[in-house]
């Protein structure tokens, strides 16, 4: 027999879908700002494997010479990013949802199994709740990264008024470096997230929009509660 099962709470879906375009604007406006001083690279000593960003990238994206516009956008949308993120954290704590999100002791071992399974290896999936072990670690990590982006951002934004925060980040230049690599982390997350959503299929994506999925009642196993919002 088929029944409707709630996969994602209304609040979670709102926070998620608000965050998506806001984070997009934050990353693009961050790029407009970064262009004005773009020192970061992957490399060692005099060997540079990749410079963020090469000229062809700037030529293709037209992000050049828009520093003032980028700053204005960034410092406006940062409000929405921060308020939405804080509201999400408060909601998750108060509602008790955090229990289904925060990694447990066993999650770290299980996450390896999940990852190997997802890469096509014949590894059985451990039983799971709303989120599997890899999702618990990743989703909690991405929320923590959001908090760090906010803090390092403030450290760059007001290094004199919040000099203690800038000092905590390791100084002004380190704060900017951390802020940049956190953003690269989001892009890495985004790539895997989209790939997993595509892999998990339509019903899974639909459940992130409408909150529900249709499941077989008799299969009272991991599958019933499982696989919502794969990485």
């Amino acid at each position, binding site marked *: 027999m088929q029944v409707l099962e709630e996969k994602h709470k209304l609040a979670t879906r709102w926070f998620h879908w608000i965050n998506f375009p806001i984070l997009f604007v934050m990353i693009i406006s961050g790029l407009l700002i970064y262009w004005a001083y773009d020192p970061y690279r992957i490399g060692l000593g005099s060997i540079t494997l990749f410079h963020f960003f090469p000229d062809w990238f700037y030529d293709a994206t037209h992000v050049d010479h828009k520093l003032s516009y980028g700053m204005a956008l960034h410092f406006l949308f940062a409000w929405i990013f921060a308020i939405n993120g804080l509201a999400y954290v408060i909601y998750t704590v108060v509602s008790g949802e955090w229990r289904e999100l925060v990694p447990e002791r066993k999650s770290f071992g299980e996450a390896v199994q999940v990852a190997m399974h997802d890469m096509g290896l014949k590894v059985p999936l451990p039983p799971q709740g709303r989120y599997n072990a890899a999702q618990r670690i990743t989703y909690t990590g991405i929320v923590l990264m959001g908090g760090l982006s906010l803090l390092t951002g403030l450290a760059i934004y007001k290094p*004199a008024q919040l000099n203690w925060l800038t000092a905590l980040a390791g100084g002004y230049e380190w704060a900017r470096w951390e802020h940049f690599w956190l953003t690269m982390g989001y892009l890495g997350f985004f790539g895997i997230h989209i790939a997993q959503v595509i892999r998990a299929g339509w019903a899974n994506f639909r459940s992130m929009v409408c*909150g529900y999925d249709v499941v077989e009642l008799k299969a009272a196993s991991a599958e019933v509660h499982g696989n919502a919002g794969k990485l």
Partner: protein
Amino acid sequence: MQENSKVLTPAEEISRRSRRSFIGLGVGAVAAVGGWEWLHSGEIPEGDIPGKLRAALNFNEGVVRNTLYGNDHLAKTFPASAVGKIRANGDVGIDEALDAAAWRLEVVPFGASAPAGKLVMDDLRKLPRHEEIIDFKCVEGWSTVTQFAGARFSDFTAKFAPGSEKAQCVGMRTPDEEYYVGLDMPSALHPQTLLAYEMNGEPLNDKHGAPLRLVIPVKYGIKNIKRIGRIEYADKRGDDYWAERGYDWYAGL
């Protein structure tokens, strides 16, 4: 209606919910695009940012000034060993050679309409000399640890424009009026704000604003005007070269 009283199958129920939710998502997306258009609507002066983004910057300024800002919040200072490689950015207002002998500093106190005094460098050197090694921050994102020495702007004001502390703002211009900045008075009177005549142990050179420049570590470099020719206290926000070109008027750090 009959449909409402009917018990829906799970398949019908999910398609009903999903239809509603996707319509909601679509409405949200349209609203977001509309909001974006609204944010960019209105006349935009050449080279400036949309007015609503300007309003957001001004809103942030208000929040910062009412919550974070304090004259006891100091920009970090460094040991002499941390002084880095200097770079010179921007020559607006200082591209003509300086006639050091002819240079004067005009001071227009609060409420006055004409300069009350034309000062020479010796007048400034008589004020207590203050030295600081700070991380000079360009709005572009880079920064350089630099040593500066000069007179505190608060000492300068007390001596040459007493009473002008109660003005809301102060404006400064290069002698040719090509470059100009507007400052809020609390930042101008911040204890680290200097009228500097020395940089890295040497008299200020032409490229960095000889004979006298502003060093205001609680602001981005764009506010640290070089070769000051005129200082004017006022209640109105003075013109500001980079604010007219899209940047935050406050530009506080």
